[in-house]
C-alpha cells in the first residue's frame, strides 16, 4: 500500500514542480501522439468511409484483415519500420531513425487500422435514409459524404480518441524508433520503462499517473467539443 501512496505523492510533486525537463517529456509525448493521430485520421476516416460505402470484391476480406491489424504488436511495427529507415535500410539516407518523425511513422501505421475499422463501424450504423435524403435534397457526392460523416461524428470522434489513447500509451514503437533520447524522443512511456529499468519503480508509477492525468485532460477537452457540437 505504501508503494502506491509514495507513487501518488511523487506524481503530485512531479506535476507541482513543473520541472522543465519533465515538461519536455510530456510535450514530446503529446506532440508525437497528436501528430500521429491527426495523420492517421486524415488517412483512416476517408478510407473507412469508402470501405463502408462501396461494394467491391474482397471487401469482407479487407475488413477482416483490418480487424486483425487491430492486434498488431507495437514491436512488429517497430521492427518493420526500423528495417526501412535505419542507415542500412532503403530510406536510410533520410536519417529518420531515432527522430520524432520515425515515431510518427510507426504510430500512424499502428493506428490507421483502428481509425479505419472504427469509422467503418460508425458509418455502417448510420441509417441508409440519410444518404437518400442527402441525395434527394440535391447534394453532390462530396456533400452527401460530408453529411453522413457529420451524422457519424460521435462514432468517428470515438475512433480518434481510441487511436490517441493507443499511441500515447504505447511504448514499443517509441522506444524502437524514437530511441528514448532525452530531450529529443523521450516520451512518458519510454521514461516509465527507463525508470523501471533503473529500479525507480515509484517514479515509474508516478509517470503513469501523470500520463493518465494528461489523457484525462485530453478526453475532457474532446468531450467539451462534443458537447458543443451536440446541437
Amino acid at each position, binding site marked *: 500500500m505504501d508503494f502506491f501512496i509514495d507513487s501518488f505523492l511523487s506524481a503530485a510533486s512531479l506535476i507541482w514542480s513543473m520541472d522543465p525537463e519533465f515538461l519536455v517529456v510530456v510535450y514530446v509525448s503529446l506532440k508525437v501522439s497528436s501528430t500521429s493521430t491527426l495523420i492517421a485520421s486524415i488517412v483512416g476516416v476517408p478510407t473507412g468511409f469508402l470501405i463502408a460505402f462501396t461494394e467491391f470484391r474482397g471487401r469482407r476480406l479487407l475488413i477482416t484483415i483490418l480487424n486483425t491489424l487491430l492486434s498488431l504488436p507495437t514491436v512488429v511495427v517497430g521492427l518493420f519500420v526500423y528495417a526501412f529507415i535505419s542507415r542500412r535500410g532503403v530510406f536510410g539516407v533520410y536519417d529518420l531513425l531515432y527522430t520524432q518523425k520515425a515515431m510518427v511513422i510507426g504510430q500512424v501505421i499502428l493506428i490507421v487500422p483502428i481509425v479505419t475499422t472504427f469509422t467503418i463501424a460508425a458509418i455502417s450504423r448510420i*441509417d441508409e*435514409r*440519410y444518404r*437518400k*435524403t442527402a*441525395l*434527394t*435534397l*440535391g*447534394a*453532390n457526392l462530396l*456533400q452527401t459524404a460530408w*453529411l453522413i460523416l*457529420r*451524422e457519424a461524428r460521435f462514432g468517428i470522434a470515438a475512433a480518434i480518441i481510441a487511436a490517441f489513447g493507443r499511441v500515447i500509451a504505447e511504448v514499443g514503437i517509441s522506444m524502437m524508433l524514437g530511441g528514448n533520447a532525452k530531450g529529443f524522443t523521450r516520451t512518458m512511456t519510454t521514461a516509465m520503462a527507463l525508470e523501471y529499468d533503473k529500479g525507480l519503480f515509484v517514479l515509474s508509477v508516478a509517470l503513469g499517473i501523470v500520463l493518465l492525468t494528461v489523457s484525462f485532460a485530453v478526453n475532457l477537452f474532446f468531450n467539451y467539443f462534443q458537447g458543443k457540437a451536440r*446541437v
Partner: protein
Amino acid sequence: MLYAMKNVKKRYEGRTVLDLEALSLGKGKILVLQGPNGAGKTTLLEIMAFLSSPTSGEMWFDGRKVDFTGNSLMGLRQKVVLVQQHAILFTTTVSRNVELPLRIRKTPKRARKQIVEDLLNLVGMEALGDARAHRLSGGETQRVAIAQALACYPEVILLDEPTANVDVENQMAIERTIRDINRTKGISVIFTTHDMIQASRIAEETVFLFEGKKARSTYENIFSAHMELDEDPWKYSVLQNGLRLRVQSEKLGRVRICIDPRAVRLSRSGSSEDNTFQGRLVQLADEENRVRAHVDVGMLLSVLVPKDVFSGMDLGVGDPVWITCPAESIEVLG
C-alpha cells in the same frame, strides 16, 4: 406527361419487386399510388426520385428520356424531391434542416433565413425552429421533412406514406399542406398511401399497385383461390370457403383473385345472375361521397356504394343483403 414508363422492371436478389408494362402520370396534379405493403410503391418512388435505377425498361421525365447510367441524374434530382417513409432529419436544429437544401444550392445567407421562416410557417412548425430535430414526434418530423423538401424548390414532390404512424392532428396538417403546395405553388405531388379514405379525399388520380404490377383497382378483397374448368371460356375460381366465382381467365391452378369493391353491386333481393351470393351487412362506413359496406358472405367482402344509391336502399347493419360480382369486377392475379 410528367412520367412515362415502359417495361420498367426492378429486381432485388432475383426477386422482381417492380414490373410495369406501361405507366404514365400527368403533370401538376395530386396523384396517389395505392397498394399493400410489398406492392413496390417505395421502389417506384425511388426510381421516380432518381435515387435508384430500374433493372430494365425505359422512363421519360417531362418528355425527355432518362439516362440512368450517365451523370444526368444529379441534375434531375434538382427537380424532384422525395420525402421518405418515416422521414429522417439530420442531427441538428429544425431550421438548419430546412436550410440545408438552400445551403447546398448556395442561396445567399440573408435570403435563406426568410425562406426557412416562410416554409416553417407553411407547415405550421414556426414555433419549433430552434428545437432539435431528433426530438420531434413522427408527425412533426414529417412536416419538417416536407418543409425541407420544399426548400429544394422542386417541380415534383414525392411522398412515401406521409401520414403513416402520424396522429390525426398532424395528419390533417399534412394533408392540408399537400393540397396547398399543389394549388399555390403548382408543384406536382405524388404520394403513396394505404389509407383509401385519404386517397379518395385528396387524390385527383389513383394508381393501384399490387405485387409490383399495376392493378386495375384497389388491392382490397384479395383472396387465394383455386381454378377449376367450366365450359369454355369460363372457369370457376373456387375460394377457400367454398365460394365459387365464375371468371374468364387463361390461368389454372392456384391463383389469387381481386374483387374491385366499386364494381360489386349490392341489393336487397337476389337474382339468378352469375356470382350472386347472399350475405349479411356487418359494418358501414362513411367515405366522402360513398359508403363502404362490409358484407359477410362466408368471408368478409368490402363494397363501395355511391351515397345516393345507398340511401335509397334503406339498409342497416345486420340486414340480409345480396351481392353480385360482375365479371369485370374480378381480376385474376398470377
